[in-house]
């Protein structure tokens, strides 16, 4: 039984914050207060774009204790699958969308003596909520924020003004200022935690360096904004629902399943949390695993697939759905 806890919200404000970045403010249509959330949480926004129902996850960047509204900031992605294009170009003030309860798959470790945030581009969003919460709690944090250039970087001035230049360091690619990761990681006291959010390449680079410098994985945290990659069109036979559906080029299996009116579990929609893991009962082709959740054994066995991001290179896959 799936209990519906989604909230209908209206777009109360749209603010351009930087080149290609807009902030959206949502208020509840029923006038009730939003639930409090913890910094790092995201919501899944369901938006109707013609006859397509899009569901995309966005980090909450508003103050976690502010129950009057939720705010997200969205980057207009170059080759958008439709989500960021819709939000930037079609969504208007007063329009209605539906959002999920907050889900936190990127929490900070409350025991940490010190927290170091490394943000790249739009990866700044989860840290904004975390810093707001931490500054109220009196925790020790510092932010290192890499932006392409000052026009495209969102919030760098506000964050420096709010938290002070001793805690917020800005690095501008165009000015050849880059985060000195090695120096940063070299002399931190025991009990320091590191969090990184930004492009995949940046995350891999930072985590790789930290590991090479002897940081244990328990002190390293990251969130990737993984969009489901495209691939060939294929059929998915859903055994339990007794249906066969078509998965389009720019559509994930999860999206195709939902479009067919079937309820499948999900949480992050980005291949990280494990909630959408589905058993593979058969396939004609090769599974393309795009997630970061499955163990190598499970990947190689061909018995499991994360339907929010992974695909089939072939004709048809049979799933236990």
């Amino acid at each position, binding site marked *: 039984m799936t209990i519906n806890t989604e909230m209908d919200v209206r777009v109360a404000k749209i603010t351009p914050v930087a080149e290609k970045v807009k902030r959206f403010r949502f208020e509840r249509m029923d006038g009730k207060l939003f639930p409090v959330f913890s910094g790092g949480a995201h919501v899944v926004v369901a938006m109707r774009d013609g006859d397509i129902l899009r569901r995309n996850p966005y980090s909450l960047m508003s103050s976690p204790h502010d129950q009057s509204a939720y705010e997200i900031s969205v980057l207009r992605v170059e080759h958008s699958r439709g989500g960021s294009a819709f939000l930037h170009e079609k969504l208007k003030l007063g329009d209605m969308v539906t959002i999920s309860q907050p889900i936190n798959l990127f929490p900070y470790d409350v*025991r940490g*003596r010190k927290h170091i945030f490394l943000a790249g581009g739009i990866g700044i969003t989860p840290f904004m909520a975390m810093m707001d919460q931490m500054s109220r709690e009196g925790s020790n944090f510092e932010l290192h924020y890499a932006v392409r250039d000052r026009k495209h970087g969102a919030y760098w001035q506000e964050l420096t003004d709010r938290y002070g230049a001793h805690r917020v360091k800005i690095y501008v690619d165009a000015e050849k200022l880059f985060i000195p990761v090695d120096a940063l*990681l*070299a*002399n*931190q*006291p*025991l*009990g*320091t935690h590191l969090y990184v959010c930004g492009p995949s390449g940046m995350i891999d680079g930072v985590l790789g360096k930290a*590991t*090479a*410098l*002897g*940081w*244990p994985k*328990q*002190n390293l945290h990251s969130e990737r904004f993984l969009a489901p990659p495209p691939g060939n069109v294929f059929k998915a036979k859903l055994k339990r629902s007794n249906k066969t559906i078509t998965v389009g080029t720019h559509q994930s299996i999860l999206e195709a399943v939902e479009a067919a009116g079937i309820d499948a579990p999900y949480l992050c929609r980005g291949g990280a949390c494990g909630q959408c893991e589905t058993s593979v009962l058969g396939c004609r082709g090769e599974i393309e695993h795009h997630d970061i959740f499955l163990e190598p054994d499970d990947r190689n066995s061909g018995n499991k697939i994360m339907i929010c991001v992974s695909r089939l290179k072939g004709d048809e896959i049979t799933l236990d759905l």
Partner: protein
Amino acid sequence: MLVQGIKSRPVYTGLAIDQHARRHLFALECEGVEALQTQVKSVGPAFLKTSDILCVGPLPKVEAEYMWSAPTIAVLLNRLRVNLTNAKMGTRLYLSGTEGFIGQTMKVALEQNIDFNSIRTEHRGSTARRVQCVHCKGITDDVKTSPYTCTHCGLSLLVRDHYSRRLAAFQGVCIDAEEPGTAPPPVEMFP
């Protein structure tokens, strides 16, 4: 209540040297030095150049950057606390000796903000246990039998496998609570 053989006792997976660590800190008790020596044989002595070794008992026969011998566990724990206060991220901690020694050193490490999953441990030497009496909260070291008599309140206690990292002790529960006076004689269980 009186079930034995339960699944929450700690597991010591071995002192495997972390090649990425920038500094290695060892706390070893007596036979624990053999665990270090085994690692040197296995991966070579290079890591010793960035190692600090604290010992209770004779020092290992190796050439490390720094080695120090403590007369008792209590003295070593104080020194470990100091080392950890000055340590930076990238330091890996290795503990080897009896369970009581590992438990006490780990307790200091946890208080100094090292995540316990990153600590490497190897059991060497006696299997005698540190046990906390759940009734009076008194801890008794070097318990070799079950049941044993609590050295604080005098109750006869069954030694369970249930272990608390925070207290660095196994749990002792009154063995004859339901029929006082019927406690069986102690049997050596942890030589």
